[in-house]
């Protein structure tokens, strides 16, 4: 089985990537601006929603329940979808999903596909598989189009091109669309995209989408979007292929009343996003004549097996955690090396790999907890991060690395007050090589990262407990006197 999460397995560590990205002032300005705007809008619409916490609680309970009966719900979905003329396929891993989808396109003699945004297709590397088989995919989400035409990578779940400014977009469009002239006003850029894509929507016969929700009771699919390209892709072509992670299923149509209130507010700070499309199978025929759903595992069942971390699969891909994360705010999404970035990416990416790759990601967090506060399905991301750090430590090849040795030594030091006080005394002696002019100028090894940007005072002459002993002695003497 080959689990693939985009190119995350080959990505540099978060630390390495972050160091480079912190130098990109344009990127940091864009990320800061984008996250400020969305968090501001989100705060307003959440505040006005009196039952926000109740909605979160129910959503979390629905997800927890669904995962506990995931096999039943997937089977129910399959039966209902098939009964209405759809076809359901199952893919254990990325390669299998790609094979199924490419074969379907070939089956319908397709050379081009119009695609609606879905990160799941980036996860499996679908576009590469298409190109390798002579099939040209057209991304139709504006940001994904910017990323595709600019030969780039997405940097955010909901606003993938937020690292690009208007001048950069203008250049990309002029070249890709063969335009002699184009202003850099966002309205004009958007109009150029509208004209360019209209032609594709009307003429390409195969549409490809993801799914925000799979409805088990009806066999239906729900796609949530803002731009209208989703409606175009799921309505106009003759053939529609929908790829969805197995965790996307919810028990019933009615459950949408919870998620459709949480998702738009969390993702874009709106009471409701412009368009939601719901359909089942091929229905009465006012839409695609052939409908296929590909259910994807690609490591999700492994995550399900971990009681501490399976809540990761509650995620509804709103991006709120990215927008609020003080770490993401500094680096943007590319630092995580994965299509899934930010706090959710830090827990989802390594787990899909069963912790074989992306081990630096669980440490890409100060555990501030802001993500948990905003998560609409109440994933306790800090708890999962800590849990995954435990897995990284326990599954290390050797426990003899410097950090592990240091940690074990500290644990011994803390094991008794005697060893603790001895270490305090040793610290007083041992610090002198590092002290100059009354300040600790430089610490050895990884601790040097501390003194690289911070001044540090030497240890105070007297520890608290040493003072306490004197304090108690003085009190006793006063009492005796």
């Amino acid at each position, binding site marked *: 089985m080959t689990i693939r999460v985009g190119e995350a397995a080959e990505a540099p560590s978060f630390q390495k990537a972050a160091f480079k990205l912190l130098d990109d002032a344009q990127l940091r300005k864009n990320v800061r601006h984008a996250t400020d705007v969305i968090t501001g809008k989100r705060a307003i619409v959440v505040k006005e929603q009196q039952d926000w916490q109740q909605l979160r609680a129910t959503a979390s309970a629905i997800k927890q329940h669904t995962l506990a009966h995931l096999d039943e719900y997937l089977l129910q979905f399959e039966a209902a979808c098939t009964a209405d003329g759809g076809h359901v396929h199952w893919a254990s891993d990325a390669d299998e999903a790609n094979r199924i989808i490419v074969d379907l396109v070939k089956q319908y003699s397709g050379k081009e596909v119009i695609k609606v945004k879905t990160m799941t297709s980036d996860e499996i590397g679908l576009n590469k598989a298409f190109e390798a088989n002579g099939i040209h995919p057209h991304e139709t989400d504006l940001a994904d189009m910017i990323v595709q035409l600019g030969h780039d990578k997405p940097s955010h779940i909901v606003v993938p091109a937020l690292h690009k400014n208007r001048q950069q977009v203008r250049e990309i469009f002029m070249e890709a669309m063969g335009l002699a002239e184009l202003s850099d006003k966002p309205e004009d850029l958007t109009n150029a995209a509208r004209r360019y894509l209209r032609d594709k929507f009307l003429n390409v016969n195969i549409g490809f989408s993801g799914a925000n929700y799979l409805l088990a009771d009806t066999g239906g699919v729900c796609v949530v979007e803002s731009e209208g390209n989703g409606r175009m892709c799921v309505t106009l072509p003759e053939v529609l292929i929908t790829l969805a992670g197995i965790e996307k299923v919810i028990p019933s149509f009615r459950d949408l009343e919870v998620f459709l209130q949480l998702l738009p507010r969390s993702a874009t700070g709106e009471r409701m996003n412009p368009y939601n499309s719901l359909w089942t199978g091929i229905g009465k025929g006012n839409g695609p004549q052939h409908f296929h759903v590909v259910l994807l595992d690609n490591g999700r069942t492994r995550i399900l097996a971990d009681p501490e971390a399976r809540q990761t699969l509650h995620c509804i891909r709103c991006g709120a955690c990215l927008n609020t994360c003080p770490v993401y705010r500094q680096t943007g999404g590319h630092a995580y090396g994965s299509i899934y970035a930010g706090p959710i990416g830090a827990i989802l990416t390594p787990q899909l790999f069963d912790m074989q790759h992306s081990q630096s990601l669980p440490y890409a967090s100060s555990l501030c*907890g802001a993500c948990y506060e905003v998560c609409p399905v109440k994933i306790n991301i800090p708890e999962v991060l800590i849990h995954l750090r435990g897995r990284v430590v326990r599954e290390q090849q050797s426990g003899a690395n410097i950090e592990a040795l240091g940690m074990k030594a500290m644990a011994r030091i*803390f094991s008794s007050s005697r060893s603790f006080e001895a270490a305090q005394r040793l610290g007083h002696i041992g610090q002198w090589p590092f002290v100059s002019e009354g300040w600790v100028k430089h610490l050895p090894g990884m601790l040097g990262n501390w003194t690289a940007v911070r001044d540090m005072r030497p240890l105070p002459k007297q520890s608290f407990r040493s003072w306490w002993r004197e304090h108690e002695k003085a009190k006793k003497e006063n009492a005796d006197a």
Partner: protein
Amino acid sequence: MRISLFITCYNDTLFPETGKSVVRLLERLGHQVEFPLEQTCCGQMHYNTGYQIEAGPLMRRFVETFKNAEAVCVPSSSCVAMIRDHYLKMAETAGDPGLVQAVESLLPRVYELSELLVNKLGLEDVNAYYPHCVTYHASCHSLRSLHLNDLPLRLLRKVRGIDLVELQGIDQCCGFGGTFAVKNGDVSAAMLADKLRCVENTRAEVCTAVDNSCLMHIFGGLHRQRTGIKTVHLAEILASTEDEATQ
């Protein structure tokens, strides 16, 4: 009241003034302070970095040390968060019903300093005097684990002579994050830079918080940039009176 002090390993070693201030303050308020010398560390650094196994004995030690305490005062919200958020689960995972019971019995008696003062002792005015311009940073654990809300601010507002200035981005993480500060030093530095900017914009002389972990990180940057701004733990401000002129 008989109040047992859990000073925390890093305060004991690096910030004894904070501990002394807690003692001075509580004794001034008429309480008896105890300091069980067997205490060492709550285990947070190990637990959060992935060394949960090594944190186990530290948890047991804490529970054993304080099992008979009437109230435990902890001048560090991150340590209280460790105890409150994780000790019970650790005891359950260890499969030790006696330990579980001991943790359940102890948890309600553990207080962060401002919780102790306001919620347990019912005080907001502790008769403090601190004639300086001060801004308050809300540490992440105090905000999101302990939900202290404005307890520390209510205490600060009653300090005589204080000039309290609001900190922009008060709830933004300062970037310390324990071992994060060295394992992801660059991002930590970037987050610190944002926090320093906000502190400097207040024109305060002093930045305070309920955690010396945040403060030593913030001070490290404030001093490196020669801003002249100091960091002072909440306890030291509250302990300060006209007589003692603590700084």
